[in-house]
């Protein structure tokens, strides 16, 4: 477990460092994820410690989002003034892109068969 955490934090540190040094628009943890994936592909196996600690974190991903999510209830006044436009863009826009992307992915995989 501790070894797994060490690996995760090390790759995050590496990613943050690269993100900072290259001024890339992609955040450090995402670069860290890609580097760890590359390392696992080279090594061809996942240690049990890494398996354990990554499982715990991934299983409770929504807990980690919770504090940011609460922010919806506390938006500033000038934003609330434009809420009808924002609400339509979010609800309808998300529904449209959900349906279209489901259709697109289905269409391609079927034609691959």
């Amino acid at each position, binding site marked *: 477990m501790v070894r797994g955490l060490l690996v*995760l934090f090390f790759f995050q540190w590496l*990613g*943050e460092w690269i993100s900072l040094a290259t001024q890339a*628009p*992609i*955040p450090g*943890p*995402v670069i860290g*994820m*890609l580097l*760890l994936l590359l390392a*696992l*592909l080279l090594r061809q196996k*996942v240690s049990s410690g890494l*398996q354990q600690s*990554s499982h715990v*974190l*991934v299983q*409770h*991903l*929504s*807990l*980690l*989002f*919770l*504090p*940011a*999510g*609460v*922010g*919806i*209830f*506390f*938006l500033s006044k000038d*934003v609330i003034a*434009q809420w*009808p*436009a*924002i609400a*339509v*863009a*979010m*609800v*309808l*826009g*998300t*529904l*449209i*892109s*959900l*349906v*279209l*992307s*489901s*259709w*697109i*992915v*289905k269409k*391609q995989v079927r034609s*691959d068969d």
Partner: protein
Amino acid sequence: MIEQLKNSLTQLTSSEHLNQLSAIILTLAAYQFGQFCYQRSNRLMLFHPVVIAGCMIAAVLFYFDISYSQYRDGSQLFYFLLGPATVALAVPLYQEFRHIRQLAGPILITVMLGATIAAGSAVLLGGLMGAEGEVLRSIASKSVTTPIALGISDKIHGISTLTTGVVVATGILGALMAPLAFRLCSLTDPRLQGIVLGLNAHGIGTAVAFEKNASCGAFSSLAMGLTGAFTALTLPYAIHFFGI
């Protein structure tokens, strides 16, 4: 004696340390309660821990007149752990890598088209409803995972607090409405469902995808990462091109 106790109590509540502990306890307790409701409702999306616990925490903050910024400062621990959690997504990605490689073409095409539709539909609908440029720029990155969305919003001069709110709301809405889209398109393959979830509902969609099964979650994390990278690389130019 009592006066002394009272004094030390007010000192304690103003301490940063205690604020952190209170925020952590509140978040964990609300999450626990949210999970209980979710299990009891047979995993109805409307009772997802993010929804139930989010409302509960907001209610507590309103009732005790605690500012959101104080709660946010106190709950930094969870935000901090989002970093290693993102890195941890590499493990399920590695375990599903064989399947991912088989579907590489469809994944890439779906992500590029889907990310464009997600950003385009939000800006178009918002614009038709009369939202202003600054708001449009803030909602354009609504389907991108929070850390990347904040980077994009900053780059294209959006309002960062609005972007955070819109991103999280989109994640919840996307996860709520996804079953509807799956039924409409009769999309039953959990791997393909994962792509749609990660593409439209980023981290929250991915959290829901992992509850379905590991392979759905792995595809969702991949789609989330690709959508973020693609949007970060293209949206600033698109905004400039259309003069929004």
